[in-house]
């Protein structure tokens, strides 16, 4: 970082790095104190999850034959796309990797972005950094402290996953523990890349929300890039640091050099972040604040109109994301179809029929998951507006709470349907154009729209939480979403009863186009959504407005 440039003449606009780290020790203690619970939760959840998968797979796959079965069954486009497939999937280590690795690295990288923003851009936006820097505190001390602490988290998660793997005897007999060490390094490496991405995002964006969206967005983009690579010939996989981690191939090739590449990338990203931090003003981003309009259009006086203006960027961003995802996924299906066509043979033709439809159903459900994040983000903004206090001047106007909340909920309700239809439709249209089946666009748009009631159930649950436990609503709502996603992925690992798992909103939706349409779950979920939302809004209209 700065140390590398210290020997050269220092430009006038830069501050001498020697002063840049004054107060580092105090800042490390501050970061640890403010984040101790979060750090512990991320560590325990990620390492614990891996440990659980290890012990579960140890008990389930007792013979080599069962592992061979697992490897054969896992060799599907869906698994390749979602989690990647270990080349050693028929070994215990490879099987566990296939199940758990991608989740751990994604959660770690995105979690680290959020943690870096929390001590970085968020504090700067709220003015706490200004207060700290008025004391004897170097320009880089707070950032560096946060990077150090979060870097230690990444290394600790990697090290303990490696320990868990060694403890679970995941390495092939006689191969030592190299595989487990490669595994741990790949996890720590991707976590560190996430740290670098979060650090740069926190310098570029002038708001914490912007920094989180930018950082998480880049990581998700890297995930999608490797997904396309894994489904194709593998070239694109190398374009993503997540792909580098995959290609370390623990328990198979056991490559170390991609880890060095990840460390180098992290160093470059942190160096860039440090450079930006040394040059810019406190509170500023890369783009200076411009003057705006002196007047507002009349439509902004309605809660819906104002929310559309304030949430313009997320709405456009999510719409673009869904359009891109739809087009990208559509083109993947095309490639898969061609691949399977080449394979030929009658039996495989039969398999292909369901195989392609299973892939389509999986992609449609991923579209639903993407839409769900958008819907939840726009729904929890009701609480964040209440917490920030911007709700009060509005309610001090001639505006009822019901009208305020209902208009705000129009965005998640209507735009989720638009996103589902758009994403599913594009997926179908792009896929359909390659197989000369124009009906695919409409069919998959409807298949995706079938997830609308499920998305609304989660939205309504967030509204209910907001009504009854406003201060806990935002973390609980995201927690519910994460838990649902987690249970859908890993529910069977935790031996939860089948009826419970299939009652989760996303799972209760008919798996179109693989399954046929069933109206009962859709109607039931719509009724449940209306009831939950009504209960939440009724409570909100009767309780005190509670700022943070």
């Amino acid at each position, binding site marked *: 970082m700065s140390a590398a440039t210290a020997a050269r003449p220092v430009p006038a606009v830069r501050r001498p790095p020697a002063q840049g780290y004054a107060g580092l020790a105090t800042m490390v203690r501050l970061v640890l104190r403010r984040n101790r619970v979060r750090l512990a939760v991320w560590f325990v959840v990620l390492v614990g999850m891996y440990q659980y998968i290890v012990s579960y797979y140890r008990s389930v796959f007792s013979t080599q034959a069962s592992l061979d079965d697992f490897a054969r069954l896992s060799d599907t486009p869906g698994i390749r796309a979602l989690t990647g497939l270990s080349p050693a999937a028929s070994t215990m280590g490879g099987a566990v990797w296939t199940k758990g690795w991608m989740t751990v690295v994604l959660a770690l990288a995105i979690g680290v972005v959020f943690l870096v923003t929390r001590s970085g851009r968020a504090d700067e936006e709220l003015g706490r950094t200004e207060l700290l820097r008025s004391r004897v505190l170097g320009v880089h001390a707070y950032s560096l402290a946060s990077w150090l602490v979060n870097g230690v988290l990444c290394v600790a998660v990697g090290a303990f996953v490696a320990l868990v793997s060694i403890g679970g005897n995941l390495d092939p007999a006689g191969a030592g523990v190299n595989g487990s060490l490669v595994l741990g390094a790949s996890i720590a490496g991707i976590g560190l890349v996430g740290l670098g991405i979060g650090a740069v995002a926190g310098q570029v964006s002038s708001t914490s929300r912007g920094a989180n969206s930018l950082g998480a967005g880049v990581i998700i983009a890297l995930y999608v890039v490797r997904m396309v690579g894994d489904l194709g010939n593998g070239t694109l996989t190398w374009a993503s640091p997540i792909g580098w981690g995959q290609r370390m191939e623990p328990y198979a090739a056991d490559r170390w050099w991609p880890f060095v590449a990840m460390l180098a990338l992290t160093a470059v990203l942190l160096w860039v972040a440090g450079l930006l931090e040394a040059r810019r003003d406190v509170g500023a981003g890369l783009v200076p604040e411009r003057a705006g309009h002196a007047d507002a259009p009349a439509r902004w006086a309605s809660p819906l109109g104002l929310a559309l203006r304030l949430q313009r960027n997320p709405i456009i961003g999510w719409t673009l994301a869904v359009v891109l995802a739809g087009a990208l996924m559509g083109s993947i299906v095309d490639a898969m179809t061609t691949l399977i066509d080449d394979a030929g043979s009658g039996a495989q033709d039969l398999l292909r029929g369901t195989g392609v439809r299973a892939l389509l159903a999986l992609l449609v459900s991923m579209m639903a998951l993407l839409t769900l994040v958008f819907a939840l983000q726009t729904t929890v903004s009701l609480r964040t507006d209440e917490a920030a*206090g911007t709700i*009060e001047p509005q309610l001090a106007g001639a505006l009822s709470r019901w009208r305020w909340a209902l208009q705000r909920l129009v965005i998640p309700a209507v735009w989720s349907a638009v996103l589902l239809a758009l994403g599913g439709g594009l997926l179908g249209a792009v896929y359909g154009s390659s197989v000369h089946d124009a009906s695919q666009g409409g069919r998959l748009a409807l298949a995706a729209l079938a997830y609308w009631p499920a998305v609304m159930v989660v939205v309504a649950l967030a509204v209910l939480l907001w009504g009854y436990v406003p201060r806990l609503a935002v973390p609980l709502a995201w927690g519910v979403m994460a838990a649902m996603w987690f249970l859908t992925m890993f529910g069977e690992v935790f031996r939860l009863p089948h009826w419970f798992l299939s009652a989760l909103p996303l799972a209760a939706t008919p798996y179109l186009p693989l399954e046929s349409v069933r109206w009962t779950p859709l109607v039931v979920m719509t009724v449940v959504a209306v009831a939950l939302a009504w209960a939440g809004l009724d409570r909100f209209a009767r309780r005190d407005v509670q700022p943070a």
Partner: protein
Amino acid sequence: MSTNEMAVHVEGLTKSFGRVHALRGLDLHVPTGQVTGFLGPNGSGKTTTIRILLGLLRADGGRVTLLGGDPWSDAVRLHRDLAYVPGDVTLWPNLTGGEAIDILCRLSGPLDVARKRAMLERFELDPTKKARTYSKGNRQKVALVAALASRAPLLLLDEPTSGLDPLMEAAFTESIREVKAEGRSVLLSSHIFAEVEKLADQVAIIREGVAVETGTMAQLRHLTRTQVTVALDGGVDGLATLAGVHDVATSDGHVTFAVDEAELPTVLAAVAARGPRSIVANPPSLEELFLRHYGDELAALSAGATK
């Protein structure tokens, strides 16, 4: 007085947050067409009261009438006729001040563009800057311009001048005088005695959730004492024993003491008989009244300091 003559009528208002009793039976009246000062130290319940009047919080007990309606259940109807300035103004960080003013004005009724321009000019506010770049004083101005640009019959102002410079405080005083001249009602919560003294027709002093003193400025002055300083050659003999005289102190031939309002004629006659060379009499200030009600807190503070 009937409710028609009362813009705000609060009786026995209680509100608790968990085990904290923010309001314990507050009485407050804002007569129509008058400015009512609402004085109290931090945490005495002023903001809680105003948030109840806005229907943001629900009263636990007591009677609250605002413009003849219930601030909780008739919130929407009543809010067409009131304007509110919070003590801590929160705006949308990525909207400009001008945009925020338009939104707030239109939420209560049609926007009066000419009036908005006039108020922007009076408060020297640049409406094209993003709210996140405003200082505290400028955020306060946004809320003030939005409230004063309306012609609402009732203004609820929660420490509206916090963060304003003296020139802007003068602009505020001018605006409130105009509001009063138009026959509109104002509830003005404040720490600044001079401001309340200048503007208020009547005052309520709140402490720990109860009104400890209410009345017109004239009525309250009856409760307090005039501060008199006289230069006496004849000495102070006998002065301290007069009825209504308190806190006599002498330095360099100057005698200072406080006189109860009711005893002022008698005491002044007694002073005149002693042949004073000069006399200065200060009218009782609201500050003094305020200090009297918090005297024990001040005493506790200074006792703590000398320990």
